[in-house]
Every structure is written in structure tokens, then in C-alpha cells.
């Protein structure tokens, strides 16, 4: 069974562009965003093999004409890009232009391009819907670090960008229509769902649906605010850990903070498409990676030994033949060894295992007094980072928001006594309750509200814990399970589509049938985490067909930044006062 693969979807678009251009010297002209889109799925050296010898940005100037070069322009259909293209076509640098837009382009823009093309060098104008970053086969991101504006409303540009991103995910997978469901409690989710639905309907070319097409794609739009705890937890699978502790940006990892790092390892590329070890260990937990990297090291040392023993012409020949693989292997080994040692250094230095255990305990089991004692102990331990104390306090605040003997203030006081939290963090403790507190939240995030949920939690506890650091299961998994079993309630997650379809669905639901989706595409306003990606990947391994995406791939740091930006202005003032009173 083939799984739907987002990386493959983007790659096949790029392949097609390069093929269509023919066997000449080519240049790839991109904008800032499409450059990231391409770099996520293709290594530059691989594109180079297809005679693409120039990579540049559309805004790059220069007079010299390279008439015998064909330009593949892969651009988002933004106003600036259209203007830049018009300027370019008036004074063309290249001989031929193959123009590909990542999304719907206005007829008026086509017209202005046609007017500008006085040298008649445009060969192709097409829409190729690769308008998202494909991170893993099942994971995409729109690379919007801050979705929320003040008071949690959409900004027009971001709304447009998000709709375009979702439409392009659908079209790149050859889906013309979808059942769109959204989280009703979120205004932003509702607006996005409506806009997405109307945009899909307006595209007449694509809505001529195939009568045999009974396969339904479900798009589920949710708001990060419903589950604010997942981004706050420490992570223990490889990809998630690297992002949490070091940070991954467009598959690049910056290692210049690592003590005594060599120059060539300051920035490394971590792309599962080109790195077998990484691909095999994306979802391995920390213990497994430690074992696997040992295996890799031993393999390498063996190779290294045989490689250095060159005694005869025959040896030399094998040396030369194996040399490229050897070089590649050596690069992979030193990269992963460096990263993994850095991870374990940080884990040891900041006592992250202890922190994580408390976090998981707090979120999943949580005897209140026990938790408070543990947090107090950690606050006093000066090895623990402020950031980790903040995580614990935030989780505590969310979990015991309306608990009768809430001790958040005591804990804050205790914290201020022992350490000086940055101002930002103190703001955050206020902001997080506004962001994802009970006032907004509907889901039973901690499984404490209904008897059903309590039982479920109890059973999970009985079964024993496989791994104390990974007890938490993100809300998203529960939502999907409910959706698949037909238990996701319509009032909380309504369907945006037209009335007749709803009737149809009601009808079939009355008859006790659940419409089986052909796949589920999830979009999380406010970003997703690699932990969620890991859980979706587990489900997909068991034959589920789910794609996960969001405005951004968050780690704790970037999540904190986004939450702080979204704080209503009145609140940030209040917390300032709070801060100053504390200082006194």
C-alpha cells in the first residue's frame, strides 16, 4: 500500500519543471519562500546533476545578459513577485522563461506579464501547487512563526497565505474537494474553514468532480490553543529532541553553540531524504539512538580500518571505489555523533530526565501535593534551567487552574526567591492561561473531567508505563481516534460544507454508518510539534492515512514567543504591574 507522501508530491512538481525545460543549461529563480520549499525536498548537488547551474533569487539584479540560459522561475504569486517578473521581462537576462506559480494567479497578472513580454521569451506559464514546506512524508508546515495577532484574530495576509497553503496541499495530492470540519470554539478555525471551502468551490476547473470519486478527504482544522501543553513538554524522540534542544530550521541545524565545535560542523543539514541514519532514527527514543549510533560508529571504524590499510594496487582500487561512500559515511557519522553527544551533554547538564519525569507526572497522573513538592525541589536546584521551571509552572497553571488549593502563587514566590526569571517568562505565565486556559479550552486535556476520561486514564495507568518520559499522548491523537470512530461531536467540530451534504451525512449517521474518509488532512492553527508528528507517524505505520500540518513546527522557545505576541495588550500591562509588585 502506498502512503500519500508530501515530499514526493513536491519533488514530482520540481522534477517536471526541470524536465519540461529540456537539456540545456538552466537557472532556478526563486523567492525566499520557494527557496525553502525546494531545499526541503532536493539537495542542491542533486539538482546540479540535472544541469541546473544557477540558483538565485528573483530580486537579484545585475545587467549582464545570459541569453543562452533558460530560467525556471518557481515563485509564489505575490504582488512583488509579479512586479519583479514584469521588470525582468522588460529587460530579460535569460533567453527563455519557464514560469511556475505555486498557487492561483489572477488573470490580470497574467495580462501584465503578457504585456511585459515584448521579447517573447516566456515559454510556459503554469500553476504547480507546491506551496508548503514538506518536512516529512506526512508532515507539512507553512512556516508562519506567529499566526495570532492581538486578541487572536486573523491578519488578512496570513489568512490568505494559510488558505493557499491548504488548497495547495489538496491539489498537489490530486484532491479537488474535501469535507472540512473545524473546531467550533475557535473563531479563527471557523473563518479559515469557510474561506477554504469557498476558495475550493470557486475553482471551477478543479471542482468538476469525478462521479466515481466517493473517496472523501476530511480536512480537520484545529486551534493550537485547545492543546497548549504538548509544546511545553520535553521531548525524547530524535527529531523532536534535536528541535527542542538545538533547533531545526528548514532541515538545517546550527551547532555553533556546541563547545569546541569544528568549523565544518557549525551548521549541518539534517534531511531524512538524504541521510539514512537520520531517516531510520527520526522516531527512535533517546535510548535507541544511543544504541544505534554505537552500531554506526563501529561500522565506520571497521570501514576506516580497512580504508587506511592500503598495501597493494588492489587495495588502492577498492579505496578509490569505496571512497565516495566512505566520505559520505564519515560525514554522517561525525554529524550524528556530534549531535547526539551534544544532546546527552545538555540532558545531563540540565537534569532534563528529572525535569521530564516531573512534567509527565504532572500532566498524566498528578497527585497535587506530590507535584507541588517536586516542583519546589526543582526550583531550588540551580542546575535546572529557568526555561524548564517555566515549563513546569505553566503546566501546573494549566492543570490546576481552578483547583481548590491552587498554589501557583506560592510556587511563583518560591521561584522569585531562588532565581530571577526573565521578565518575558513572567509575562508568559499570565499569557498561557489566556491562550489555552479553561476560558477557551473545551477538550478534557488532562482526562479529569468526565468519569469516562478518568477511567481511561486509570486504565492507562494500570497497563503500566513503558517509558516514564513519554506517557503523555497529545490531544490530536484522541481527536483523530474520535473522528475515525464517528464520535467527534458535530456541535463541537461542525462541517462547513453545504446543507445537502450535511443532510446526507446525518442520514447515513442515523443509519449507523460512518463515512470512511480516504485520508485525513489536519491543519493546526498556531503550529504543530514533532511529538504530534511522531504519534501520527505511528498511526500511519498501522495503515492510517493522515497528514499533519500547521502554521509552524514549534519547539518550546518558539511557542513561548508566539504565545507572548498574541497576548491581548491589556494583559501584558497587568503582568507588568504584577512583576513590579513582586520585585518590591
Amino acid at each position, binding site marked *: 500500500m502506498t502512503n500519500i507522501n508530501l515530499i514526493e508530491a513536491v519533488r514530482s512538481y520540481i522534477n517536471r519543471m526541470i524536465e519540461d525545460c529540456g537539456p540545456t543549461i538552466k537557472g532556478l529563480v526563486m523567492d525566499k519562500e520557494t527557496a525553502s520549499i525546494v531545499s526541503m525536498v532536493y539537495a542542491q548537488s542533486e539538482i546540479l*546533476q540535472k544541469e541546473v547551474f544557477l540558483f538565485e533569487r528573483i530580486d537579484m539584479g*545585475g545587467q549582464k545578459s545570459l541569453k543562452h*540560459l533558460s530560467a525556471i522561475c518557481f515563485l509564489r504569486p505575490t504582488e512583488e513577485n509579479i512586479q519583479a517578473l514584469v521588470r525582468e521581462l522588460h529587460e530579460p537576462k535569460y533567453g527563455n522563461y519557464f514560469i511556475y506559480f505555486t498557487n492561483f494567479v489572477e488573470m490580470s497578472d497574467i495580462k501584465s506579464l503578457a504585456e511585459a513580454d515584448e521579447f517573447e521569451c516566456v515559454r510556459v506559464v503554469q500553476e504547480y501547487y507546491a506551496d508548503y514546506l514538506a518536512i516529512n512524508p506526512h508532515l507539512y508546515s507553512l512556516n508562519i512563526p506567529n499566526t495570532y495577532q492581538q486578541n487572536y484574530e486573523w491578519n488578512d495576509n496570513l489568512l490568505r497565505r494559510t488558505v493557499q497553503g491548504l488548497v495547495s496541499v489538496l491539489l498537489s495530492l490530486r484532491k479537488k474537494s474535501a469535507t472540512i470540519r473545524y473546531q467550533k470554539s475557535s473563531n479563527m478555525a471557523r473563518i479559515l474553514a469557510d474561506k477554504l471551502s469557498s476558495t475550493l468551490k470557486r475553482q471551477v476547473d478543479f471542482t468538476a468532480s469525478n462521479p466515481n470519486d466517493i*473517496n472523501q478527504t476530511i480536512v480537520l482544522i484545529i486551534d493550537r490553543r485547545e492543546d497548549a501543553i504538548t509544546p511545553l513538554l520535553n521531548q525524547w524522540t530524535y527529531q523532536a529532541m534535536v528541535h527542542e534542544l538545538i533547533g531545526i530550521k528548514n532541515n538545517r541545524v546550527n551547532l555553533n553553540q556546541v563547545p569546541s565545535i569544528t568549523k565544518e560542523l557549525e551548521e549541518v543539514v539534517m534531511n531524512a531524504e538524504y541521510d539514512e541514519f537520520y531517516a531510520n532514527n527520526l522516531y527512535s527514543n*533517546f535510548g535507541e539512538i544511543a544504541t544505534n549510533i554505537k552500531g554506526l560508529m563501529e561500522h565506520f571504524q571497521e570501514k576506516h580500518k580497512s580504508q587506511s590499510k592500503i598495501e597493494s594496487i588492489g587495495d588502492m582500487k577498492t579505496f578509490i571505489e569505496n571512497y565516495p561512500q566512505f566520505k559520505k559515511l564519515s560525514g554522517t557519522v561525525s554529524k550524528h555523533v556530534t549531535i547526539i553527544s551534544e544532546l546527552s551533554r545538555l540532558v*545531563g547538564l540540565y537534569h532534563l530526565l528529572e525535569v521530564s519525569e516531573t512534567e509527565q507526572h504532572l500532566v498524566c497522573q498528578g497527585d497535587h501535593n506530590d507535584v507541588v513538592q517536586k516542583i519546589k525541589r526543582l526550583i531550588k536546584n540551580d542546575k535546572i534551567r529557568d526555561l524548564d521551571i517555566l515549563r513546569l509552572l505553566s503546566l501546573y497553571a494549566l492543570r490546576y487552574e481552578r483547583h481548590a488549593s491552587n498554589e501557583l502563587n506560592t510556587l511563583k514566590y518560591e521561584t522569585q526567591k531562588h532565581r530571577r526569571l526573565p521578565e518575558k517568562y513572567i509575562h508568559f505565565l499570565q499569557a498561557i492561561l489566556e491562550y489555552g486556559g479553561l476560558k477557551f479550552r473545551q477538550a478534557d486535556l488532562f482526562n479529569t473531567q468526565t468519569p469516562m476520561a478518568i477511567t481511561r486514564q486509570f486504565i492507562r495507568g494500570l497497563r503500566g508505563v513503558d517509558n516514564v518520559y513519554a506517557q503523555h499522548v497529545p490531544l490530536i491523537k484522541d481527536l483523530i481516534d474520535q473522528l475515525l470512530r464517528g464520535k467527534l461531536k458535530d456541535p463541537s467540530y461542525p462541517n462547513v460544507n453545504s446543507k445537502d451534504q450535511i443532510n446526507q451525512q446525518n442520514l447515513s449517521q442515523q443509519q449507523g454508518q460512518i463515512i470512511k474518509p480516504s485520508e485525513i488532512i489536519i491543519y493546526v492553527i498556531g503550529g504543530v510539534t514533532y511529538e504530534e508528528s511522531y504519534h501520527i507517524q505511528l498511526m500511519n505505520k498501522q495503515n492510517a492515512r493522515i497528514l499533519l500540518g500547521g502554521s509552524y513546527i514549534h519547539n518550546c522557545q518558539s511557542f513561548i514567543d508566539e504565545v507572548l505576541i498574541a497576548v491581548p495588550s491589556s494583559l501584558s500591562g497587568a503582568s507588568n504591574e504584577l512583576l513590579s509588585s513582586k520585585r518590591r
Partner: protein
Amino acid sequence: MLPSVGDVREGFICPQCHHDMSTMEMLQLHFQDVHMKQSSSAVKGLFSLAKQKIKSVQDNFTTVPNEQSNVYTQFFSFDQNDSSLKQQQIGYIRSYNDKFKKLRKIEHDQISIETTRLLLRLEKLISNDEDVPKNAKTKERRKYEQEIVEWIDDSKVSLCPSCAKPFSLSRRKHHCRLDGFVICDQCSQFLLFSKARYLIDPNSSTLNKMTANGSSLQGSNSLTATVTTDDSNLNNKDKVNSENYLRICLSCQKVLQRRYDQICFKNAQRDEVFLYYEKIAEAQKELANIHPTYSTIIESLLSGDTKYQIIDGQRLYRQLTSCYEKIDSTSKHIMKLADSCSNIDEDDTQSQFRYSALCRNIRMYAVHLLQNYAISTRRVPSEDDVQRARDERKRLVEERNELERAAKAELVSKISSTDSPTTSKKDVSGWRPTIDRNLLVQAQELNPLVQQVYQVTEYIRQAQIAGRYDEVESLKLNLKELEQALKNMPQQENASTFDSYAIECE
């Protein structure tokens, strides 16, 4: 910003000290001399450090067994038998090509009509015919010009339409020779006859050489001259070359300039890089042709086959090396162009950057190409080697025949005469492996899998003797699978006996 391509180091770089050794041979020598004795202590240090650290964390995690089940299949309406979904198709595409071309045509038709009209007039105005008056100042000339283009009545025009200044004694009225409108002297453009001829027929004009270097299509390369900058110049020229010019207005100049740019764009000369690159592409094509043949020849020579002669191999090897050299030297030359950036303005840094990136990337492409091919190219074996291979083969064939004869004799003595047709079937085309009975007897006590391994290794040996390399390959694959199966078996002793046997066979 995109990652700068220039920083990526490619080529024959030593893996340990990162010196560029420029050729394969140099690298081999270098590696032998410098690194062979010293084991890389840096790598080792890193490893031992890493090992210590990693050990401490390993204990904290237990590996969760991977459950493989398909519990989610039931929830999705995915038809696994639908063949159209087996391979992910490319996503939707929408093309605007036709719409775009239609719009472009509409837009540009108007302009091209206008251009043709002006060009027709221009042709008459600069005609060399004898009855056309030449001197620009004479009345006959003016009359001739007015016959072609009707001049508008200038009495109603009091302001210059282009600069909006009033006409007076010092600001006299002039007529554009192409559309007859009135302009002042300062707004006039002057088109030399030679340039006008070039516009009408770019191929035959002598101007061709002047403009065709096309490197800077825009900017300085203006078609016409204005009074303020070139008046004296033009006058001088008139006196010296007695070259004529036409006074035209700005709007006509725009139309003609556009036509001129288009001609320049079409006739732009190939940059050096492209000429050189073509050579690389040619050599690459040749390589792709020769290389497979060469490999088969070498293969055949080394196996002692007499189908090819050494000289065939040498001839092709020479061709191959000349291709490599061509690619190498041409790409190196292109690389040099990266630094010189000839015919680019010095202050146009972005063009320089682009140009050198282009050159460097071509070099990188070429190096990669060389690495791909050169690594799989073996040298031509020497006379002795080939002779030895042939002798060896002969010996093996004889040995086999000997063995066969012995086996036959044994069989005949042991088994009744019913077997004879199978043995007599042996002919050149129908090679078939036979099994040493002794081995089989030994193997009887062993595990069936191990027996199988014995048989296959025996087959391989025989096939090698018979020179059936395709069969050897497939048999080796079988052997590998068997080995795998054996390894997975719990009985350790079996596996170990097999291992030692396999080593002997090597």
C-alpha cells in the same frame, strides 16, 4: 539568502586533511604517504567521548517493541487494489500557456503594425536610389520627405508636445521625418542612416559587428543620439563621413528602439561559457557511448576470453582518457572564467556573482561527472595479465574436463547405463552444473539449508570455470539469500562451519 555555492568544496579532496589534491593519482599518493600510518586520533577521541556519554543515558530508556498491526485499515476507504493509486501521481497542474500567448499576441500586434508602418517609411527615406535627393538641407529633399510622410500643419502648434515649452524665434519648430509631428530641436532624436539600414535588414548591414556583441542589451546601447550630447559630434561626423541622419520624435524613437533591442536580443552572441559547456556536453555524450563497451571488453579480457584483443581495449581507453581530459580541462577553463568575469561592468557585482557561480557550478558538475565515470574505469590489463588469464582459463577448462571424465567414469561404474543420455547431453550451449558426490555425502548430515549452501557454492565454482558470468551473478545472489537465512537460524555451529567453508571457497 541562498547558500553560496562557492563554499562547497568538491573534487579530489583528502578526507582527513581537506587538501585539494586536484587529481585522483595525487590523492592516492597523498593518502598513502601522509595518512596511512597515522590512525585518525581526532575521530577516535570524539568517539570515546561520545561513547562515555551515551552509555549513561542508555540505561534510562527501555526500547518499546514495535507493534506492527494494521488496526487503522478499517477506518479508511482506501482501495488497496486500485492500481491507479499504487504510485503517487503528480499533483494537479493548471496551464496558462494558451491564454498567455493570446494576450501577448493581442498586445503586441498593435505595436508590430506600428513598427512595420514606420519601417516602411524609413526604408523609402533612406533609399539609395539615384532620383532620391541626398542633401538634407535642400528643398528637393524636403519635398521628397513630405511625399512619404505628410507633415502636419505647424501653424496651430504653439507648444512643443514633448517638453511643453513655447516655440519662439530661438526655439524653432521641427518636423519628425517619420510621423510628421512637430517638435523642438531639443526634443529631437537623430537616427543615422547606417543604423536605420541595420534596423531594416540586420543581416546585411555592416553595423552587425558593432552591435552584435550584445552583452549589454540595455542602457548604454541607444539607437539614436540627442542634440545636447551628440550635436557637435554628429556635425563633425557629417563633415567627415558625410553620413546622413533623420530627425525623429521621441515616440517614433521608442518604437524603433524596441525593434532594435529585439534584434540585438535575438543576435546576442553566445557567451564563452556556453561554447565551452557545449564541448563538455559533447564529451559527456561520447563517454556515455564508449564506456559500456569498454567495460565489457575489459571484463572479457580479464576472464581470458579471446573475443577481444588488448589493442581494442587500449584504443577505447585512449578515447576515454581524451574525453576525461577534455571535460577536465574545459571545466577548469570555465572555472578560470569565474574570476575574470570578462565583459561585465566592474560595479555590476550581482552579475559578477551570478557569472562566477555559474562557472563554479559547471566545474562542480564536471568533477562529479569525472568521479562517476573515472572510478568505474579500470586500466587496460597488460599483455602478461591477459596471457595469464587465458592460461588460467585453459587450465581450468582442462581440469574440468578431467573432472568430468573422472566423474563420468565413476558414475558409469556405480550406476547402471540408464544415466548415459544425461551425460552425453553435455554440449557447449547447454552448460549445467554438476555436484560433487563426495560433498553431498558430507552434507547429508548437515542441515538442509547448509546443504543448499554447499551446492550453490559448488555451482558457482563450476560456473566460474565455465566462464558463465551471468550465471555466477545470479547464483551469488542465491547464496547471499541462503546466508541470510542461515544467519537467522539459532544453531550457531552450523553457521560457523558454513562460514569457514565460505572463506575457503573465496
